[in-house]
């Protein structure tokens, strides 16, 4: 029997499906509904192996605008010189440091790019040490120091302008139940820098999912998997919501590992130690989304509301004590048809978001001038869980913190895409590198299956 079943329709699942199909498997992808827009960097290796052409990364320019307390905005452009000019008006000191900061962060990001395009490294292997050494003396020292650091400390080392530090600091805490003063958040700034040119600290969106869905050879089925059948420690197939049973000796799941192994697989096949560890994988959703349409242009394409690191930290304080932030971090992007999507953090999973939509509109209203919002829709983490399949509303399926990254993602025992159940494999955002890196986990997983 040559059939392989891939669960989930994200970029990782589709990449894995394609590679398995090209290796001669008869592949069926079961997706609950058309997956939503994937964000993030697509490693060139993925495009190369699948021979995908026509990828169009989409990034606004300026890639971020930050309102300033005295009026006006600080705009960060893709062009370095233009950004330096813009920063100079706020702080000559910061303008002078910006190019070096960008150069040093970019160097570390290039290192992570190489790490992300491969299966999780063995931290004790000489090969990994050698690769890290290629960063050079200062680069390696930077890496070792920055990875465990709070992003606030890193930014305080370099800059003085609150607006700049706030916007960069926000990248350190996106989708994380931590504040900028928590350890390990500087790593997240680097993570979101991966794949971007120096000086750009937000990932691009792209049409990768659209391109992947157009590829032939793979059958897409729009339904839901209820159960993964296991017999004698090996996968035998899946049971679908419509009652159909499909036999397969290979099942690849891009659904989060906790759900895959604890809910979809019948209990009893998993070692209790592993089951316990899985239950402790943290996947707390902290961001809501507000979607709306404006009747005219708001005058920006990408706007971040994080006036200072303290503002972010206070927003986190609320979430830490189980409340929605009274003054949340907002990041709004608007397309040419004036459709706006706003990321709202922190809105912890399971906490009532009453009045949040109005508050966000009031906060943003100061910046979009006379534009009138319509079709306003707020998706709290609970709705995101329901509509997008993100566990607890967490788009990364497992929080990307240092202890759930690299060879620890999502757990050391599962990091190599293989599960203790023969024929059942994992890909998706919860697997290395995951979390916004499109397709790489799928590629690594397929390679592991095919023994490449």
């Amino acid at each position: 029997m040559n059939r392989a079943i891939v669960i989930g329709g994200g970029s990782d699942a589709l990449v894995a499906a394609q590679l398995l199909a090209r290796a001669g498997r008869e592949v069926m992808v079961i997706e609950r509904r058309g997956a939503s827009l994937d964000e993030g960097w697509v490693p060139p290796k993925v495009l190369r192996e699948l021979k995908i052409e026509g990828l169009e990364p989409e990034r606004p320019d300026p890639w971020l605008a930050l309102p300033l307390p005295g009026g006006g905005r600080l705009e960060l452009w893709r062009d370095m010189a233009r950004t330096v000019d813009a920063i100079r008006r706020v702080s000559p000191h910061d303008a002078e440091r910006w190019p070096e900061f960008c150069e040093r962060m970019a160097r570390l990001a290039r290192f992570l790019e190489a790490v992300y395009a491969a299966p999780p490294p063995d931290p004790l292997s000489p090969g990994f040490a050698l690769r890290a050494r290629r960063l050079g003396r200062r680069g390696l020292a930077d890496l070792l120091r920055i990875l465990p650091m709070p992003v606030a400390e890193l930014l305080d080392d370099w800059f003085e302008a609150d607006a700049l530090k706030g916007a960069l600091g926000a990248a350190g805490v996106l989708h994380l139940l931590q504040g900028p003063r928590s350890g390990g958040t500087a790593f997240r700034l680097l993570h979101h820098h991966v794949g971007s040119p120096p000086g750009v600290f937000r990932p691009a969106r792209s049409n990768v999912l659209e391109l992947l869905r157009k590829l032939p050879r793979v059958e897409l089925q729009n339904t839901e998997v209820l159960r993964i059948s296991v017999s004698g420690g090996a996968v035998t197939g899946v049971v679908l919501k419509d009652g159909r049973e499909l036999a397969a000796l290979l099942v690849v799941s891009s659904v989060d590992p906790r759900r895959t192994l604890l809910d979809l697989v019948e209990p009893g096949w998993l070692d209790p130690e592993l089951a316990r560890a899985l239950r402790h994988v943290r996947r707390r959703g902290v961001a809501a989304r507000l979607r709306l349409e404006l009747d005219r242009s708001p005058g920006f394409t990408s706007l971040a509301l994080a006036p200072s690191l303290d503002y972010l930290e206070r927003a986190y304080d609320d979430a830490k004590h189980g409340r929605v932030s009274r003054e949340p971090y907002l990041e709004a992007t608007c397309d040419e048809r004036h459709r706006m999507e706003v990321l709202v953090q922190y809105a912890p999973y399971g906490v009532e978001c009453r009045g949040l939509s109005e508050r966000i509109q009031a906060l943003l209203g100061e910046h979009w001038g006379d534009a009138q919002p319509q079709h306003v829709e707020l998706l709290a983490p609970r709705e995101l869980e329901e509509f997008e399949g993100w566990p607890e509303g967490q788009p990364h399926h497992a929080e990307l913190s240092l202890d759930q990254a690299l060879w620890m993602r999502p757990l050391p025992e599962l990091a190599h895409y293989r599960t203790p159940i023969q024929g059942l494999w994992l890909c998706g955002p919860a697997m290395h590198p995951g979390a916004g890196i499109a397709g790489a986990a799928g590629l690594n997983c397929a390679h592991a299956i095919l023994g490449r």
Partner: protein
Amino acid sequence: MADYHAIVIGGGHNGLVCAAYLARAGRKVLVLERRERVGGAAVTEEVFPGFRFSVFSYVVSLLRPEIIRDLDLPRHGLHILPLESTITPLANSDYLAQWNDHDQNRRELARHSLRDAEAYDEFGLMLHQMARAVKPLLAMAPPDPTSLSFGELMGMKRLAEHFRSLGPRRFNTLTKLLTMSSADFLDEWFETEALKATKSASGIIGTLLGPRSPGTAYVLLHHYMGELDGVFRAWGFAKGGNGSVSAAIASAAKAAGAEIRCNSPVERILVSYGRARGVVLENGEEIKAKRVISGADPRRTFMQLVGEKHLPAPFVESIRRFRFRGASAKVNLALGELPDFTCLPGRGPHLRGAISISPSIDYLERAYDEAKYGEISTRPYLDIVIPSLIDPGMAPPGKHVMSIFVQYAPYHLNGGWSDARREALGDTVVDTLSQYAPNLKNAILHRQVVTPADIERIVGLTEGNIFQGELSLQQMFFLRPVPAWAKYRTPLAGLYQCGAGTHPGGGVMGASGRNAALQILGTA
């Protein structure tokens, strides 16, 4: 002509340990102490007539057993009395006790949660294994991962081999401990809030981080590595206070031939032709030596005693970035009677151990929330001991001394520290504790409050950080204090460091002083 083989700046315990090892190897060593007594932050002072206090550091546990052995410290007067328990009083007049006695401890935990009682042994075993995995690193001069020299590469290889020898399971647990928050780590094991909070409290000591911030789990382990007479995680008092630890080391150093001069503040380190050649005292006296070893913290050593102009710019930049941010204070009380805790009335064995005000993780986080914006915690974390119960010589008959460690009291206080703010801190601490022991206020005869600013002024620890620099992941091991300069050497030839600002850090361990001496002697 050099007068000495080596001058050690600062007679803190690390400086003394370093001097003792050098003197034992036959080197002519001079220790220069600014204050009128040796010990640095490990001193005993009669603050009020008849009442003797370990003014700053107040318990012993981390002092390395090899130092006790090598220097034969018991012969020089070191006598450690064990602490038997930790009590955490709770708001509902209940309490959580942790006893050294295994069965007693298990019964007490089971009273709160059967599940936690069951998990406790396994947790203890796990931490024990982790402490054993880290222990060899404490006595090691960290290899430089950025260097391509053969020696350093071999050092890194040995390090990798050590980690590999732990097996994947233990290595993964160790990585988790290094990268997780103490709250998350403990959440995986326990459900009793007071247990999690009291354990995670040792993860925030000396740092300006809350228990939910990643990186605190390692500090928890750091404090777990205490070892007395080969018994892991035993905590104790030094008979006569922590000053007697310093006194014993000083006595060992003198017996080996080291010279110790108090009241000798160093003004600067003599530098000529790119080499440290001695020191100049504040009274103008110049003393020459082949080597200068600084027990002062990195900022004081390099920015003050050496001066930027003698150092490479990137190094200066790194020293500037080395973070201190002291967040701990001490309140020392002279008591007319023992505190009477609502949860455990009367005089019981619980008073002979530690008392921890840490009812929940949220309590600690709230205390941290205020401190990170520059305020004193309204309800701080307190760690309390009553040394006079175990060592009656510390107070007049029938009276007692109480030592209270307080966190958070940030060095960078909004508006700065003043006498009024110091007393306000004292009131906050007494009020907090009085909620659990209502007779406390009436029992107080005298009160001494030591703020981070006081610690800096009196002991010379920058920003009052008790570890000579925060013990956070980015300032540890081969990054402490600066990458590539973690081997006790400095960019200035002839100048070495031996303080807690170097690996493995603070806690009256003595390991920094020993490691530095062994590096200098070339026998490491």
